[in-house]
């Protein structure tokens, strides 16, 4: 959607172009380059435009769901707050945590010393979570809620109000925290569990498709600039062949991230040797095949 750019500019909002991160940058920030498809770039910009609609990303594991948020933050020069969800994570943890035990210790010390420096002020014991930090930040913040499906099924619903109205209340102090600038929220899900409908309704949904051969080649190229073209083509070809064979089976398919790991090893060896190996049995199969059955199935064929 070409006119999104003008539109976001007119509204004074940042615009994501999906430019790949330069090599210096990627070394400086310890980030590898990222190459989104044009449609994904549109989706990101629409989410920026609409403000209170988080972008829900789904797709095969290893297709770059998590990496997008970082790439957006870096390109737009915005602060980045990742929130990695675990099975025990509660919605409140993302907003703030209140350390009652710490305060209890301090109260004891204070009563002994007869000085009560910080105990009275509850704010000393409240620590903001990723979303809480993003709300407080003067700058628009990119928030990543990673693997939301890992949490309890109540988790997404508990965040509805916070994401919708962009404010929350700290129960302990009664203080209302309102977002100074609406954060750009990315949510990733591996589809382990269904998300509640009420939550889904408020999200923009984007499914990251597996990249085409051409895209795969450019992805390999930006990760490993100056790699010989023959090698990239041969590796991508072998990789897609393997992937096609896996099609239709319910097993885990090889992913982009595995291709990159694989290529990182391949390029270390003399080119002619690797090219020869790629014709035969897959070299370094342990990077691509993660199950014993897969080893048996795909290695014995050639």
């Amino acid at each position, binding site marked *: 959607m070409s006119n999104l750019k003008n*539109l976001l500019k007119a509204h004074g909002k940042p615009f994501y172009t999906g430019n790949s991160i330069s090599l210096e940058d990627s070394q400086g920030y310890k980030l590898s380059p990222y190459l989104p498809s044009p449609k994904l770039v549109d989706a990101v910009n*629409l989410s920026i435009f609409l403000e209170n*609609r988080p972008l829900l990303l*789904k797709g095969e594991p290893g297709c770059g769901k998590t990496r997008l948020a970082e790439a957006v933050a870096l390109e737009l020069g915005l602060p980045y707050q990742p929130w990695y969800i675990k099975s025990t994570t509660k919605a409140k943890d993302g907003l703030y945590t209140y350390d*009652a035990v710490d305060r*209890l210790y301090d109260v004891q010390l204070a009563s002994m010393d007869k000085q009560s420096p910080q105990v009275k002020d509850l704010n000393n014991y409240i620590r903001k979570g990723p979303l809480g930090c993003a709300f407080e930040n003067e700058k628009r913040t990119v928030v990543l809620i990673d693997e939301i499906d890992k949490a309890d099924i109540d988790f997404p619903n508990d965040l509805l109000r916070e994401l919708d109205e962009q404010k929350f209340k700290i129960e302990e102090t009664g203080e209302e925290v309102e977002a100074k600038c609406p954060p750009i929220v990315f949510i990733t899900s591996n589809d382990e*569990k269904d998300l509640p409908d009420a939550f889904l309704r408020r*999200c923009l*949904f984007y499914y990251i498709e597996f990249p085409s051969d051409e895209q795969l080649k450019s992805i390999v190229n930006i990760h490993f600039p100056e790699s010989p073209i023959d090698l990239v083509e041969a590796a991508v070809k072998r990789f897609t062949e393997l992937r096609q064979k896996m099609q239709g089976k319910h097993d885990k398919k090889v992913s982009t991230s595995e291709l990159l790991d694989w290529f990182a090893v391949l390029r270390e060896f003399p080119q002619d040797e690797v090219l020869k190996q790629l014709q035969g049995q897959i070299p370094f199969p342990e990077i691509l095949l993660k199950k014993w059955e897969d080893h048996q199935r795909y290695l014995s064929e050639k």
Partner: protein
Amino acid sequence: MKHEELPLLNIFKNLRQQHGLLLGVDEYMVVLRSLQAGLGVESRQELEELCCLVWAKSEQENHLIRQIFEKMWQILPTQSGNQVRGIPEPRTLPESNISLPEKPTVTKPLSDASSDEKPAPEPSQVDELAELESKPTIIPEPLQTVQAVRSSRQDRLQIRPHYSLLSEYFPVTKRQMKQSWRYLRRPVREGIPIELDVEATVAKIGHEGMLLTPVLIPRLTNRTDLVLLIDQEGSMVPFHDLSRQLVETAERGGRLRQTHVFYFHDYADDYLYRHPALLDAQPISEVMEEIGQRAVVLIVSDAGAARGNFDQERVEETKQWIEQLQQSVRYCAWLNPMPNEYWRDTTAGEIARLLPMFEMSRQGMNGAISVLRGRYVAWEKMYSWLI
């Protein structure tokens, strides 16, 4: 082509009514807002993309929306007489888009969602779209169930509406299933102690005179292990999709600790099967040992009600394994996909005397789950003929 001529509202209504996507006025407005701002007006593809982003919530729904767009654009030229050629007129000036008064389009969905005064879209269009659904594309099998349920309820459905307003014909929708599963919980504190036990900590401070270490307790987790026993094949064929949905929602939408699914045909004699096609047999005694006493068992079967005859042998056999079952687990219930007025004088009626049996409806499912939670449900009183 102008905004007002876009079949957007029809597509939106179609998604809501025919396919049951959970979309509100808000979602429609978001698309309009974006259109007004000049997004998605360049080409049909862009509009499609925009709608997918805002309205779809899964890969399948994405696909569905694309399909409907395809269909709509096929209908359009013949219907409006316009030469559309698949692509609406390009709008070049974004400024003019923003200033365009779009009141009619904006108010349309509002009045529409709140009242039924607005006439339905032209029948031809609705028909064509309804056709879309009947094609076995994404949700193929439910129709079988529909027919099965409908034919058994013919007396009730005398006035058949021109088109159905609900996407799912099932007596219990997927969403309702998920909601019901959530009630099935047995919270137990389990795992690493991370939560502060305020009361115990205060008591400890009182006891020791000062706070040395706080008392921590594990978090509450659901410890329900559900075992679904599902009747397959034979008279259950039309309900396969329904039971599959039941399994799916329990596994993905519920908050159960573990869900085991076993299959059988008519009644379980000595073996239960792990695979829906009745493969992977496992002796019933072994299964019972494996699932443990605290698991709850839900049986899904028509118990012979679909055939509508009385089969003494089936009653006897069922009685045997139900007794065996009741000895090894504390709570079990039966869900019958046939409506309960069809149980009477059939095998099902007799089996319903053995354990709590409920029809597959929202109330029935909630009833069954209450039984599994150990609540008493006066299920026998629901069917006067049972007493």
